[in-house]
C-alpha cells in the first residue's frame, strides 16, 4: 500500500524528538505493524502496539489514539483499516495510513477493532511515552501519569532525559513519581530500589501505598517475595509515612462525605419542613415532587440538546427555576384541589396524598416509560478534585453542598424578611388571629404548599445528578425526609439543617464499621429512642398549630 505522509488537519500531536530519533523507518514496516493490530488475539495486537512504539514513527499515534477510543474499524468486504468519526448516518471514515477521506458508511458496514483493558493500559502507556516531551504542560502531566500507571521498563532512560529538561515543578514531581515507580517495578538493583522507595515516601497516595505494599507481599508459605531485608525495611518506612498521611486524609474525606450526604438529606427534607413542618400537612406525595423536578430537568436538558447543543452545559441553570415553577404550580393545584378540604384531618390527608403519589408515579411511568432517563452531568460537575492522595472530592457533591446551602439561605431570607414570610409565620402560629387581621389564610396556605413543593422540585434537579431519574426516585427519599424533619424539630428550619447534617455525618462515620444496612438500622433505632426523650425533636417550636 503506498504511504503518503500528509499532515492531518484534524489532529495535532507533538512528539519528543530526542526520544524517537530513528528518523525514517521503512514505511512498509509501519504498514505491516499497523496491520498487526487487526490480529485475531489480544496478544498479537499487543505485540503490534509494542512494535509500533519501538519503531517510533509518529504517524502511528493517531491510529493508536483511534484504537484507544474505539474508532478504529475494518470495512466489511475489502477489510481496509479505517478511522471513523461519528456522523448523522453512521461514521465518516478515513484511511488509517494515509488519512484519505473515504466517505460515509453505516454503523453496521464496518466492524470495530476490539480493545480490552490490558491493551488499553499498554496503549495509554505507549502514547505517554510518545508525548513526554510535548510542549503542552497538561499533555506532559498526562504522559507522566500514564507512564506511572503502566511502568514499562524501557521507559527509564526516556524518563531520566525528560526529567533533566523539565522546568515545571508540578510536572517534575509527577515525572519523579513515575521514574521511582518504574524503577521499583523493574530494577533488581538494591540501591536503586531503596532510593526509589524513599522517593515514593514523599507521595501520600493509595496507589503508591500499593506499590510499597507489593514489595512486602509474602508467598503462599508466608515467606517474603522480596529477598533483601534492607529493601523490605525501606518499604516498611515508606508504608508508614504514607499511611499516616492517608489516615488523616480519610478522616477529612469522611467529614466531606457526611456533609455531602447531609446536604442531600437537607435538600430532600427542606420542602417537607415547610409543608409538614410549618403547615402540618402529612404530605406523602413530597417524594413525587422531587421526582417531577428531576423529570423537568430531563425535559430541559432534551430541549437544550436539540436546540442549543453548544450550551447544554448550562441546561441545569435553566432547569432550577423551571423545576421550581412546574412543581410549585402542581403543588398549588394539589393544595387547592385536594388538601384544603382535608385540613385538620391528618389521617385522610395521609391517605389522599399517598394515593396522589401513586397516581403521579404511574402517570410519569405512562408518559416517560418505566425505564430510567439519562440526565448527563455537565462538564463542570464531572470528575473530582484531587486535594491530596486518598482525599478526592467529587465536583457533583461539592456543587450539591453549595446548592443546598444556597437554597437554605434563600428560604431563610424569604421567611424572615419578606411580607409573605411574615404572613406565613402569622398563619402558622395563630390562624384565627391572622385571619382576623386581614390575611387571606387560604391564599397563604396555597402559596406555602406551592413553595414547599417548588423547593422539592429544585431538590429533584440536584438529585438527578447523583441518582436515577426514574418514577421511583421519590420513594427513596420520603422516609429519610420525614426522619430529618421529625428529628430536627417540626416547624423549625434550623432544626432541619442541623438534623440533616448530623444524620449525614453519623451515617458516614458508622458506615465503615457497621456497613450500609446496619448503619441505617442503627440510626433509625437511635431516632426512635431520641423521639421518646424529646418528642418535639432537637429544636422545638412553640406555636398554636402544634399545641393541638
Amino acid at each position, binding site marked *: 500500500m503506498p504511504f503518503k505522509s500528509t499532515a492531518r488537519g484534524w489532529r495535532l500531536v507533538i512528539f519528543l524528538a530526542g526520544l524517537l530519533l530513528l528518523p525514517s523507518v521503512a514505511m512498509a514496516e509501519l504498514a505491516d505493524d499497523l496491520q498487526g493490530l487487526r490480529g485475531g488475539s*489480544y496478544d498479537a495486537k499487543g505485540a503490534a502496539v509494542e512494535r509500533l512504539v519501538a519503531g517510533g514513527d509518529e504517524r502511528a499515534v493517531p491510529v493508536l489514539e483511534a484504537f484507544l*477510543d*474505539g474508532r478504529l474499524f475494518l470495512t466489511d468486504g475489502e477489510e481496509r483499516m479505517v478511522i471513523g468519526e461519528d456522523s448523522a448516518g453512521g461514521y465518516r471514515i478515513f484511511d488509517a495510513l494515509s488519512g484519505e477521506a473515504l466517505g460515509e458508511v453505516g454503523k*453496521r458496514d464496518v*466492524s*470495530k477493532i*476490539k480493545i*480490552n*483493558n*490490558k491493551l*488499553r493500559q499498554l496503549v495509554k502507556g505507549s502514547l505517554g511515552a510518545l508525548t513526554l516531551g510535548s510542549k503542552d504542560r497538561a499533555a506532559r502531566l498526562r504522559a507522566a501519569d500514564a507512564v506511572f*500507571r503502566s511502568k514499562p521498563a524501557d521507559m527509564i532512560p526516556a524518563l531520566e532525559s525528560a526529567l533533566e529538561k523539565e522546568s515545571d515543578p508540578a510536572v517534575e514531581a509527577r515525572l519523579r513519581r513515575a521514574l521511582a515507580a518504574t524503577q521499583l517495578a523493574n530494577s533488581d538493583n538494591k540501591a536503586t530500589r531503596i532510593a526509589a522507595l524513599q522517593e515514593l515516601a514523599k507521595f501520600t497516595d*493509595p*496507589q503508591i*501505598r*500499593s*506499590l*510499597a*505494599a*507489593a514489595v512486602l*507481599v509474602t508467598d503462599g508459605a508466608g515467606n517474603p517475595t522480596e529477598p533483601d531485608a534492607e529493601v523490605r525495611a525501606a518499604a516498611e518506612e515508606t508504608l508508614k509515612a504514607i499511611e499516616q498521611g*492517608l489516615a488523616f486524609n480519610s478522616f477529612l*474525606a*469522611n467529614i466531606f*462525605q457526611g456533609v*455531602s*450526604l447531609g446536604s*442531600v438529606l437537607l435538600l430532600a427534607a427542606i420542602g417537607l419542613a415547610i409543608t409538614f413542618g410549618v403547615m402540618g400537612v402529612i404530605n406523602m406525595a413530597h417524594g413525587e415532587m422531587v421526582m417531577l423536578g428531576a423529570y423537568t430537568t430531563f425535559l430541559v436538558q432534551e430541549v437544550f440538546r436539540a436546540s442549543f447543543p453548544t450550551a447544554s452545559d448550562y441546561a441545569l441553570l435553566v432547569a432550577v427555576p423551571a423545576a421550581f415553577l412546574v412543581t410549585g404550580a402542581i403543588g398549588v393545584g394539589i393544595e387547592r384541589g385536594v388538601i384544603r378540604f382535608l385540613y385538620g384531618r391528618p389521617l385522610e390527608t395521609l391517605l389522599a396524598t399517598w394515593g396522589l403519589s401513586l397516581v403521579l*408515579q*404511574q402517570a410519569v*411511568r405512562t408518559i416517560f416509560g*418505566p*425505564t*430510567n432517563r*439519562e440526565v*448527563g*452531568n455537565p462538564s463542570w460537575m*464531572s*470528575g*473530582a478534585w484531587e486535594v491530596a492522595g*486518598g482525599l*478526592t472530592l*467529587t*465536583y*457533583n*457533591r461539592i456543587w450539591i453542598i453549595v446548592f443546598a446551602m444556597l437554597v437554605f439561605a434563600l428560604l431563610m431570607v424569604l421567611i424572615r424578611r419578606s411580607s409573605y414570610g411574615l404572613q406565613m409565620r402569622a398563619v402558622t402560629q395563630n390562624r384565627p388571629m391572622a385571619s382576623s387581621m386581614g390575611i387571606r389564610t387560604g391564599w397563604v396556605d396555597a402559596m406555602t404548599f406551592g413553595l414547599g413543593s417548588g423547593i422539592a422540585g429544585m431538590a429533584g434537579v440536584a438529585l438527578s445528578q*447523583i*441518582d*436515577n*431519574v*426514574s*418514577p*421511583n426516585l421519590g*420513594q427513596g427519599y420520603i422516609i429519610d425526609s420525614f426522619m430529618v424533619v421529625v428529628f430536627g424539630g417540626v416547624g423549625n428550619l434550623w432544626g432541619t439543617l442541623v438534623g440533616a447534617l448530623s444524620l449525614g455525618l453519623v451515617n*458516614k462515620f458508622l*458506615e*465503615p464499621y457497621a*456497613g*450500609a*444496612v446496619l448503619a441505617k438500622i442503627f440510626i433509625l433505632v437511635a431516632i426512635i429512642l431520641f423521639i421518646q426523650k424529646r418528642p418535639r425533636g432537637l429544636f422545638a417550636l412553640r406555636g398554636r398549630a402544634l399545641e393541638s
Partner: protein
Amino acid sequence: MKSLFRGAMSAAAFAAALAGGSAVQAAEVIKVGVLHSLSGTMAISESTLKDTVLMMVDDLNKKGGLLGKQVEAVVVDPASDWPLFAEKARELIEKEKVDVVFGCWTSVSRKSVLPVFEELNGLLFYPVQYEGEESSRNVFYTGAAPNQQAIPAVEYLMGDDGGGAERFVLLGTDYVYPRTTNKILRAFLNAKGVSDEDIMENYTPFGHSDWQTIVADVKTFASQGKKTAVVSTINGDANVPFYKELGNQGIKAEEIPVVAFSVGEEELAGLDTGPLVGHLAAWNYFMSVEADVNDTFIEQWHAFIGDEKRVTNDPMEATYIGFKMWAQAVEQAGTTEVNAVRQAMYGQKVPNLTGGMAVMNTNHHLSKPVLIGEIQDDGMIETVWSTDAEVVGDAWSDFIPESAKLTADWTYPWVCGNCEEPKYVKY
C-alpha cells in the same frame, strides 16, 4: 388491558368448549401467561420482558399459531410485590387456565411463586440469571446459572487477559441472589488459593444511592499491593449512582476493573458511560454481538416497539429462547398438557442470538455460551472473551460441599431434583 379483556373472553370460550365437547374446538386458543411487574421498582427491567413475550406471541400468530390454534397472551401486573406474585400466578393457572407462564425477575419473586407452580403443576419459564441452588420440575431456567456467568467471569479476572487479579471485592445488594452467588464465589476463590483476607464482602440495601464511602473503601482495599478487582451483584436502580460515583472518583477499569452480573444494556441506557469504558459485564448475550440472527431479532424488536433507540439485553434473549423452545415442544408433543410438554422440552434446540445452539438439558437449564464484555462509550457492551463452546448450566454448585453431591435430572420416571439418588415417581 386489551389482552386482559380478550383473556376473559377466551376463558368464557374455553368454558363453553369444555361444556360442548369438540364442537367448538376451532374457537379454542392457547394461552400464555405473562407474570412481569409493570409498576414498582422492578418495572424498569421487567416491563421490557413483557413486551418481548408479546412480540413473540405476535410473531407466532403471524406464522399461523400453534397446533393450528391462535396463541393469546394474558398479562397480569404483580407490581414488584413478592407475595402478589404468588397470588397472580394462582390466578393465571386456576382462573385463566393458561398453558404456560413466562415471568419473574428477582429470585425472591421466583421463590414466592414456586409452591404455587408445584402445587398446581404449572409451567414457568424464568428468563434471568440467578444464583442456582434450586431445581423444580415446574420451572425451566433459561437464564444463566452461576457456572455460566459468575465463575467464568472471576476466572477471566484472574487470568492474564483480565489483569491477573488476586484480591476481590464482592459488592452486592442485600438479598438472596447476591448472598448465594458470593457464597459460591468465596468457596471458588478459596479453592483457587485466594485467602479470606483478600476478599471483601459488602452489602447495601435495594436502591442505595450514596456510594461515596463504599467506593472510597474499595480504593483503600485495592492499595494493598495486589491487583484488585470488584465483582458486583448490585441489582436494579442502585447501579446508576454506583457507576456515577465510580466515574467521578476516577476508578479506571485498567486499575480496578468492576465486573457486573446484573448490568446490561438496559441499565446502562440511563447513564453517561464515557467514564466507565472498560468496566466489565458477564452475560450470555450482548446486543453488540455480530450475528445475522441477532440483527434480525433487533430489527424485529425495533419494529414491534416502534422505537429505534430501544436496546436488547440478555434476559430478552433468554425469553426468546424459552418461548421458541416451548413452542417447539408443544408442536412436538401435539398438546399443551404440562407433563407432555415437559418431556418434549428435553433436548430442544433453538439457535442462540449470538450464533451457536442453545439446548435444554434434563436439569431444566440451558447450554449457552458465556460472554465477557467491556462497556463502551456508546452504552453498548463489546465482547472481549467468550467460551469456545456452550456451557451446560449447573443447578447445584460444585463449589458448595453440600450441593456438590446433589443432582438434578427430571427424566421421568426416575427423577431426582434435589437429592443424591433418583426416585421412581409417577406423574
